[in-house]
C-alpha cells in the first residue's frame, strides 16, 4: 500500500513537470499552429538561470523562481520577434526548421559557455517526512503544489481575462481577430511570454529535483512534454495538463514493473496507439478545414 502511494507521488512529481512544459507547446500551437521545437531548450535555459541565481547571486527560492520565469519569458519573446515573426507568412515547415535551429543554437551556446554538468545547490531545505514506510520531501510537495497553482492561474487567465479572450479569439480565427481590434502581435508576444515562462519555471523545478544539469537536458524532456501535449490534444490547455500527468504515470509504472530500458519505447508506443484511436488527442477536437 505504502509502495503504491510512494510510486503515485513519484508519478505526480514527474507528471507535473511534463505538464508545465507541455503547456508551452500547446499554447504556441493553439495560437500560431506552429510547434516550437526550441521549447525544450528554453526549459534548459530556465534551469541554468536558476543555477546562476543560486550560485552567483545566492538568491533564495522565490527570487530565483522569478528570475527563471522572467528570464526565459523574455528570451521566448525575443526569439519570437527575431526568429519566428518574419516567417509568419512563410510555409509552416520553414518556421519549424527555424525552431529546431533556435533549439540547437541554445544548446550549443550553453555548451560553449561551459560543457560541464552543473550542480544546483538546494534552495528548498532538505526536509523529509516519514510515515511508516512512506516518505515525501518538502521539495516534492512544493513542486506538485506550485505546478498546480501555476496551471490554475493559467486556466483562469485564458478563460476569464481580456488577454485570454484575445488569445482564444486569435486561435479561433487569425484573420478576423485584428478586425475586431485585437492587437495580434502583442497577444502573440504575451502567449510566448507565458508559455516559455512556464517552461522556465518547470526548468527550475526540474533542476531542483534532479540537481545535476547540462546543456542537453532539454532534448529528451522536451520531446516527452511534446508527446504529452499531443496525447492531451495539442492546442488544448487542459489536454496538455492531463497528457503530462498521464505520461508521468506511465513512465513511473513502467520503471516500477519492468526494466527501465522499456520506459521510452512504452511511452512512445502509447502515443502511437492513442493517436490511431484518437488522432486529435484526448481533448482535441477535429477542425474542419474551410476551403
Amino acid at each position, binding site marked *: 500500500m505504502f509502495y503504491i502511494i510512494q510510486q503515485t507521488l513519484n508519478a505526480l512529481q514527474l507528471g507535473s513537470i511534463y505538464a508545465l512544459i507541455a503547456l508551452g507547446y500547446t499554447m504556441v500551437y493553439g495560437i500560431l499552429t506552429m510547434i516550437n521545437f526550441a521549447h525544450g531548450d528554453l526549459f534548459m535555459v530556465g534551469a541554468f538561470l536558476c543555477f546562476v541565481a543560486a550560485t552567483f547571486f545566492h538568491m533564495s527560492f522565490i527570487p530565483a523562481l522569478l528570475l527563471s520565469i522572467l528570464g526565459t519569458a523574455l528570451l521566448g519573446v525575443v526569439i519570437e520577434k527575431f526568429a519566428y515573426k518574419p516567417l509568419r507568412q512563410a510555409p509552416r515547415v520553414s518556421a519549424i526548421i527555424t525552431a529546431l535551429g533556435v533549439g540547437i543554437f541554445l544548446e550549443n551556446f550553453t555548451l560553449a559557455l561551459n560543457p560541464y554538468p552543473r550542480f544546483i545547490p538546494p534552495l528548498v531545505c532538505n526536509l523529509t517526512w516519514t510515515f511508516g514506510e512512506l516518505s515525501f520531501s518538502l521539495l516534492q510537495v512544493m513542486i506538485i503544489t506550485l505546478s498546480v497553482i501555476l496551471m490554475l492561474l493559467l486556466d483562469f487567465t485564458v478563460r476569464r481575462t481580456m488577454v485570454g479572450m484575445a488569445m482564444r479569439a486569435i486561435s479561433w480565427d487569425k484573420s478576423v481577430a485584428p478586425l475586431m481590434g485585437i492587437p495580434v502581435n502583442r497577444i502573440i508576444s504575451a502567449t510566448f511570454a507565458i508559455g516559455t515562462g512556464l517552461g522556465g519555471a518547470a526548468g527550475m523545478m526540474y533542476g531542483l529535483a534532479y540537481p545535476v544539469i547540462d546543456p*542537453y537536458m532539454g532534448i529528451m524532456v522536451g520531446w516527452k512534454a511534446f508527446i504529452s501535449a499531443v496525447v492531451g490534444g495539442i492546442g488544448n490547455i487542459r489536454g496538455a495538463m492531463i497528457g503530462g500527468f498521464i505520461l508521468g504515470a506511465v513512465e513511473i509504472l513502467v*520503471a516500477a514493473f519492468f526494466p527501465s530500458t522499456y520506459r521510452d519505447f512504452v511511452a512512445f508506443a502509447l502515443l502511437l496507439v492513442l493517436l490511431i484511436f484518437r488522432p486529435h488527442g484526448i481533448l482535441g477536437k477535429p477542425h474542419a478545414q474551410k476551403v
Partner: protein
Amino acid sequence: MGQKAVFGIILLAAAVAFTGCGKSDSDSIKVGVIAELTGDVPAVGASCRNAAEMAVKELNDAGGIEIGGKKYPVRIYIEDNAGKADQSASSAQKLITQQRVLAIIGPNASRYAIPASEVAESAKTALITPWSTTPKTTLDAKTNAPKKYVFRACFTDPFQGRVVAKFVLENLKAKKAAVLYDVASEYNKGIAEIFKETFEKGGGRIVSFETYTTNDKDFSAQLTKIKKASPDVIFLPNYYSEVPLQIQQAKRLGISVPFIGSDSWGSAELVKLCGGDCEGYYFSTHYAADAATPATRKFIDGYKAKYGVVPDDVAALTYDSFGLLFQAVKTAGKTDRQAVRDALSRIPNYDGVTGKMQFQEGSGDPIKSAVILQIKDGKFVWFANANP
C-alpha cells in the same frame, strides 16, 4: 578551356595532395590522443588532455626519446570524440591514416574505447586506453581472444567487482545488497554483474537488481523498489555525473543505508555535484593521491602547479599510459608501429604513478592492484589496499 584545363586541374590537385603527404614526415614522434572533451563526461576528457600535455612537455623539456643515439621530441594530436561512439572510431581512423601517429592514447570511457580499439586493431596500431576497465576493450568481439594492439593502463572490471564485493562482505559486514546500474553502458553493466556473482558466492544476497538507461534523471521508481527490499548497502557502479542524482533522490525517499561505488566515481566533480550528500561513502579506484610514493608525489605536485587541482585517476592513468608508451618506444629502438606494439606487450615492470604494472604477451591487461577510498570532508581519503 576543355580537356586540357581539366587535366591541368587534376594534375595540380594531385601535386597538392602528394606534397601534403610528403610534408608530414618530420623528425618528431607522433602520438594521437582521443579524449571526451565535450559530451556527457567532459571532466574525464579534460583530465586526460591535461595529463597528456604535461607528460609530453616533461619529456620534450628533457630532449625527447633517445633512439639510436639521437633524441626525438614527441608531438601529440588531440581529438575530441564529443562523447560519441561513432566519433571515437572516426577519430582513431583520422589519427591513424591522416596524422600517421605511432600509437594512440585514449579514449577513456569503455563505451568509446571499444569502437576506437576495433579501428586500431584492424589498422595494426597500438592503442592504450588509460581508464577503460571493461574486459571487452582488449578482447576480440567475435573470438573472445585478446586483441593484439590494444592495451590499458588500468585494472579490469572483474577484478574491481571482486574487490568491491569482498570489501562490502568483509569490511562493511553487509549481507543484503542492492544494485542500481545503467543497463545501456558497457562498463556499468559488466561491473554490476560481476559484483552480483562474487557477492552471492561470498554468502551475501542481492535483494534488488535495478536498471536505468544513460541520461535518465529520474530514478524514483527504481529507488522506491530498492527501498522496499530494505538492503544493508547499495552499490552504484555509475558515472560521477549520475551518482549524485541517485544518492540525493534516494535520501529524499528516506533511504539511509551507505552507498558504494566503483572507479567511475573518482572525479573531483563528484563532490562538487553531490554538495555534501556523498560524505562517508566508499569506492574502489586506481590510486590514492594522499598515500603517494615519492614519484607519485612529484607527479601530483607538478600537476597541481600546472592546473591548480589534484589529479584524478584519469589524469594519473593517462600519465602512466604515456610513460608505458615512452618506455616501449625506447625498448623498441625504432619508430615502427609493430616494434612499439611488441615492446609494449612485454613490459616486465613499469613503476607508474598508479603503482607497479607488468604486461605479459597474450593480454593487453596489466597486472596491478586497486585501492578503496572514502569520501571525507569533500576529499578522497585512502582507506584500504586490494591486491590482485
